């Protein structure tokens, strides 16, 4: 058992996979010499050399193009887009090229690559550096979408993503970087699998589905609720595509109430997808409305008070569940 920050888990996970497979390479702005804008790739250049850890110009389309072309010819690139917001400047590469290449070539092109990005709010960075855009990726067929909430999941899911034969968008939550976690030493590589949600807290009364930073807030809310006699089950979805609907539907079948907690702005977030699946497939299990707890449909303001006003908090989660009882 070791203590590891989520931040250090990123470098550890990448190092594990680079050790494991010489085809694994890392590419992005400042990932090498600077160790990453969030210091999540410190030490990798020194350890694996500039052939495998490559700094780039500010040109996100070129970065993802390089990753895509490399993947289809035999490398297994991990490409970093510094912030989730910047997915917008290379969205064509993500949504039109990487996502569709296998399909539109009838399976000829394989794209085993990972796009890592620092997602979400919490740093008081303002509207251009604080978005949660995992729903953008979920909305595009052909992308797998993963978002770990703990250090162990960072390593295990990153390994699974790197070893996956399909393109995976890997959302690291920037507010999780400084968090410390216990990571069990099982003597060997840590490798998880994609598409398995985790019940991080079993409960009987209501189901709360969350992702990334929101998992921690949902768990905290569940603690508050427990004190009041409401037994909440908290599910860390971990992977949006593939989605573990089995765990989700089983939980709703048990609790008959669903709450989703997401950082996505209100409209068309992943919470809407989860809600819709349940509203169609588990309607008869439900004992009341499905309630989404989201960032409202506004940009994320820079000031503490503005950011805190819009991101779901443990209090808001608890209060929402409480009111719905």
């Amino acid at each position, binding site marked *: 058992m070791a203590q590891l920050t989520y931040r250090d888990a990123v470098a550890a996970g990448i190092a594990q996979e680079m050790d494991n497979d010489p085809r694994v390479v890392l590419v992005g702005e400042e990932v090498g010499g600077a160790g990453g804008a969030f210091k999540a790739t410190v030490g990798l250049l020194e350890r694996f050399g500039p052939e495998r850890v490559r700094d780039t110009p500010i040109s996100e*389309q070129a970065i993802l*193009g*390089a990753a895509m072309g490399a993947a289809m*010819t035999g490398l297994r690139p991990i490409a970093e887009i510094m912030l989730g917001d910047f997915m917008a400047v290379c969205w*064509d590469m993500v949504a039109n*090229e990487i996502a569709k290449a296998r*399909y539109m070539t009838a399976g*000829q092109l394989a794209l085993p690559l990972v796009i890592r990005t620092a997602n979400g709010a919490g740093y008081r960075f303002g509207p251009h550096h604080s978005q949660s855009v995992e729903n953008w990726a979920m909305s595009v067929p052909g992308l797998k979408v993963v978002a770990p909430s703990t250090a162990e999941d960072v390593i295990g899911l990153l390994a699974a993503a790197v070893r996956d034969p399909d393109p995976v968008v890997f959302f690291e939550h920037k507010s999780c970087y400084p968090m410390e976690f216990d990571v069990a030493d099982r003597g060997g590589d840590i490798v998880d699998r994609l598409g398995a949600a985790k019940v991080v807290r079993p409960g009987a009364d209501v189901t709360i589905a969350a992702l990334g930073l929101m998992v921690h807030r949902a768990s905290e809310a569940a603690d508050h609720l427990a004190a009041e006699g409401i037994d909440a089950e908290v599910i860390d979805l971990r992977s949006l595509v593939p989605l573990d609907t089995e765990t989700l539907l089983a939980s709703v079948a048990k609790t008959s109430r669903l709450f989703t907690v997401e950082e996505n702005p209100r409209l068309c977030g992943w919470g809407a997808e989860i809600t819709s699946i349940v509203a169609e497939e588990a309607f008869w299990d439900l004992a009341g409305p499905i309630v989404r707890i989201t960032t409202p449909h506004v940009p994320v303001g820079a000031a503490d008070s503005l950011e805190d006003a819009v991101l779901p908090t443990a209090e808001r989660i608890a209060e929402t569940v409480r009111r719905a009882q």
Partner: protein
Amino acid sequence: MAPSEEYDRHPPVLPAPVDRSNADLPIDLAVRLRLYRLQQEMRLFEERAYDLFLRGLVKGTIHLSIGQEAVAAGFGAAMRPDDWTFATYRSHAHTLARGVPMGPVMAELLKRANGLVAGKGGSMHLTSVDHGVMGSYAVVGAHLCVANGAAWTAQYHGTEQVAVAFFGDGTTNIGAFHEALNFAKVWNLPTVFVCENNLYMGYTSIGQVTAVADPAAGRAEAYGLDPIIIDGNDADAVYTAAADALGRARAGEGPSLIEALTYRHGGHNRADPGTYRPQEEVEAWLERDPIPMYHQRLLRLGVDEGDLSVITAKAAAAADAAAQEAVDGPDPDPASAHTDVWADGGSSWRN
């Protein structure tokens, strides 16, 4: 300058006279015959495709490159079998240039199940990984960046393979072009960027939308590259420039940007009669049709007219057979709409 003047400021670009001296280039006759064959195959293939279009068998759209064959042929002949091609929606010729059989290509134009990509992509997404044709891309610009990735693999493994990206003049104005060129130079990648300057971005004269006279060559120095303009209607000139650039890339000397001046005889796509082009311009370029020009050169070099006829006849027969193969092909099984999203063959997004 008032905006209104801009709309007239671009006189038609007329071709330079044939450079007869290119007959003296040190190119093996076998290569030259291959260049001839490739061009004829491309031309006859596309003529058949156009027939099928007139018969209403091509749904969606097709983008012919009749008139531009020398570029794809010159590169096809110069590339190593394990080199990689990245092309656009206008990629019939580039696909054939790598040795992909005509039948599946034609079938893909008709979006049949026996098509190159099983009717999933259609004419804009021709791909044959077995032949190094690593995709045809229909959003302008992106594939220049993707080509760099393949070049990266070659550099990483030291295989001396080269990635070649073909694109049009209009593509030089989009951001991805700039990112790809700078990136390739900085990483010293074995990527060859080939701009087929056919003088038009869609329905618009390229000069009207471009800050420099030569859309690619005029930008080369911005990426630390030599400006290279070649006669894109002369297969020998293309072959020679291609061999040079490929050689430099293999030798670790980095990327090249080549601007090949050429012309499409028809419109931008099947919906376009091309009427925005001055008649004198079209006629001047028709006189410079790469195929008759090359035919004459081979005759001057002593090749027998009969031998050329055999090549042409074989190409015609292959194109006819391809057309038949396409027409006979079945429509894709609707169930295949759900396959090939993932490596496991399926499209499920849930466990």
